[in-house]
């Protein structure tokens, strides 16, 4: 098993290398002169030359890439063009809100979606099944921001149960923190819930037909135990796979949700940076997100070995 784990970990290195290469190239693929972009509004031609020299734009591409990677590994992600602050610092300021949002959404989605899928599979063919699947397909189809606006309007403005926007750091208390995250997590989680519920239902359907389920039933196991202990455990591999893949959806959706709910997170930072062509920030954030995504999927792959002893590849 250890050999498998080590192999999997090593396999992420070339993946990250590719991501790093792509991200690094962004600045140089862009139209226009990167030095002019960085030098800014009021720069004289001398300033632009100075910056070009400091960026080493006359040196070979691979040399520049190597230096960039070296700096990244030391934690230096460069400096933002627009704010003149270190990119690492800007990311660090905004990581907590996004992380909170994603974790809360993940927990919310998983804890709603899996029971939904299980129940739908159990009651296959009945109106419950159709309702669940109908809701799932509908969640896929409505864009996140529309859901966000509706939720904000109904629950925050009209009913005044929750705040309209903003983010409260966890250090100020659990409930204030949670209050600000409920609506965004619900909006963001919709698509995720749909995805997980569908896969859960499909996998459960197959598992429920298996012989060992019939055996368990014959042995007198209760319905709940059959569904959640015997069946779900065996269905877990595809479900966990989808949870992992779905993190990419969360990251994408967070971008919009943070805009609608004015959460000062990484998603908004990314959008602002991209619209402004603030390449150092774009590079830093895309690198970070990809790294997290790779780690999460690595974790899931490793989780497989615990969930399903048959997987040993």
């Amino acid at each position, binding site marked *: 098993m250890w050999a498998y784990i080590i192999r999997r970990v090593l396999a992420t290195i070339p993946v990250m290398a590719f991501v790093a290469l792509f991200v690094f190239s962004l600045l140089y693929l862009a139209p226009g002169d990167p030095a002019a972009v960085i030098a*800014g*509004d009021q720069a004289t031609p001398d300033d632009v030359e100075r910056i070009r020299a400091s960026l080493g734009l006359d040196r070979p591409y691979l040399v520049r890439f190597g230096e960039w990677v070296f700096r990244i590994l030391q934690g230096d992600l460069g400096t933002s063009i627009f704010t003149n602050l270190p990119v690492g610092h800007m990311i660090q300021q905004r990581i907590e809100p996004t992380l909170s949002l994603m974790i809360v959404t993940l927990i919310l989605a998983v804890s709603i979606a899996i029971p939904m899928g299980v129940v739908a599979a159990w009651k296959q063919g009945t109106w419950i099944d159709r309702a669940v699947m109908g809701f799932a397909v509908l969640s896929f189809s409505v864009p996140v921001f529309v859901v966000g606006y509706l939720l*904000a309007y109904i629950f925050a403005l009209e009913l005044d149960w929750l705040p309209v*926007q903003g983010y409260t750091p966890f250090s100020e208390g659990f409930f204030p923190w949670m209050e600000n995250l409920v609506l965004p997590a619900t909006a963001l989680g919709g698509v995720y819930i749909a995805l997980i519920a569908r896969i859960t239902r499909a996998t459960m359907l197959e598992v429920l037909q298996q012989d060992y389920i019939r055996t368990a039933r014959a042995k007198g196991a209760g319905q709940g135990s059959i569904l959640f202990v015997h069946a779900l455990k065996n269905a877990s591999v595809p479900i966990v796979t989808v949870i992992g893949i779905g993190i990419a959806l969360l990251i994408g959706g967070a971008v919009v949700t943070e805009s609608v709910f004015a959460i000062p997170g990484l998603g908004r930072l990314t959008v602002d940076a991209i619209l402004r062509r603030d390449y150092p920030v774009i590079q830093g954030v895309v690198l970070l997100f990809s790294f997290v995504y790779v780690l999460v999927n690595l974790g899931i792959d490793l989780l497989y070995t615990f969930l399903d002893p048959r997987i040993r590849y």
Partner: protein
Amino acid sequence: MERRHLLTGAAALGATAFAGPAISQNVAARTLRFVPQANLANFDPIWGTQYVVRNAAALVWDMLYGVDENLVPQPQMVEGETVSSDGLTWDFRLRAGLVFHDGTPVLARDVVASITRWAPRDPMGQMIRAIQQELVAVDDRNFRWKLSRPYPKLKFALGKTGTPCCFIMPERIAGTAGNSMFTEYVGSGPMTFKRDEWVPGARAVFERAARYTPREGTASWLAGPKRVLVDRLEWVVMPDPATAANALQAGEVDWWESPISDLVPLLRRHRNILVDIADPLGNIGSFRMNHMHAPFNNLKVRQAVMMALNQQDYMRAVVGSDTNLWSVLGGFFTPGTPNYTEAGGAVMKSANMDAARRLLAESGYANEPVTCLVGQDQPLLKPMGDVTADMLRRLGMNVDFVATDWGTVGQRRAMRNPPGQGGWSMFHTWHAGADCVNPAGYNAIRAHGDGAWFGWPNVPSVEAGITEWYDAPTPATERAAMDKINTEAVSNVVYVPTGFFKSYQAWRRNITGVVKGPLPFFWGVAKS
């Protein structure tokens, strides 16, 4: 089990990663939360000339003079000045007890360094430098400015609201070259900037400066005592106007600088929100042309556009259907002010597409592309861009529409290359009415070619008119000079004004002391 772990883990992460002070109930009551017109990305008020930068800078830095609501400059940091009888030597004396936020006293040499940094980047400052013989610190509290010709508007130059304003900063910071940004935000103004709590793009935090001693007098705009009545000011950046409106209604923010006019009826209906005109001097919209390259280097093409442009369309698109909020301009200066003139401006007041097309044909326009830079993230500029694209197409021009963001517009408009090589043909912006009352401080009307504002118009007759105005001894001659400037500016199309409009501001009922003005004034504002 898993859940609790996750949460405590996040808490630990939160405590370290997002160092923000826990706001107790008391402090929350004395915290004013304000939604600014735009994001505060960088904060150097000499380097960055956007209004939002100036608005924040006015809190952290103080000025030698400050205009009051009649646009008359009043002494602020100076105790008084004496002018020699020939008008060539100005002696200034600073007030006692002026201190920077880091504890060091404000000295005359800090003032000299600050003025030296500001002057090259401001048209009025440039004019003064051209006639400057010496600017020295005589001792710690006195400095002298010697000129070779009289410049009666010197105090206005030092106290105006038009950007860049002459903010006074420590000598070491003012030593940063004018075309690079500085990174230390230390001033002597009524509030300090909490750098460690600044999240660019999300929020900026200011705290009342304990060491600030307001001067005596009555507070009026930038003049008089700047007494800050709250402990903390938070600027909350909200990219989404719908969210800002909801936040104001829910009481999560206290004051919104520029609500869009369509949402104003919604805000007015709320019993705890007050809405009023933000600035009686309003704003002038601008279709800014690049005089250096085709097609707008051709006078007839410019005139054709001015003829085709329908200010009503622009104003409705920008400010909505409420006609109290806008009017059509017959010139380049601010309506409702004593010197407003419509001399020579008849062509601006109505749109004539047919005549414009004929003029365009006469001009020899060879279908060169018109590269339009339009900032999509600015609620005032995006609709103007859409109306422009439509109008230019109907006029028969070849539109190259570059939909980008305001920051990029800011960068690209400084490029003097031809449009096809990273340059531009036109962009939209607006000017605060306070800056357009007369030629002093009105950067956009200056037409001295390479040194002028973006677009670099080169119209000697306008410059001649401006010189006349500066030299004018009597109000009547001033009036005549303004008429001349207006006529020449219209017939040579320095730029095309798209109309005069006012905007609203909205605040919660428990906030008192909000006044109308060209920028939001935070002194005198209290929260109960």
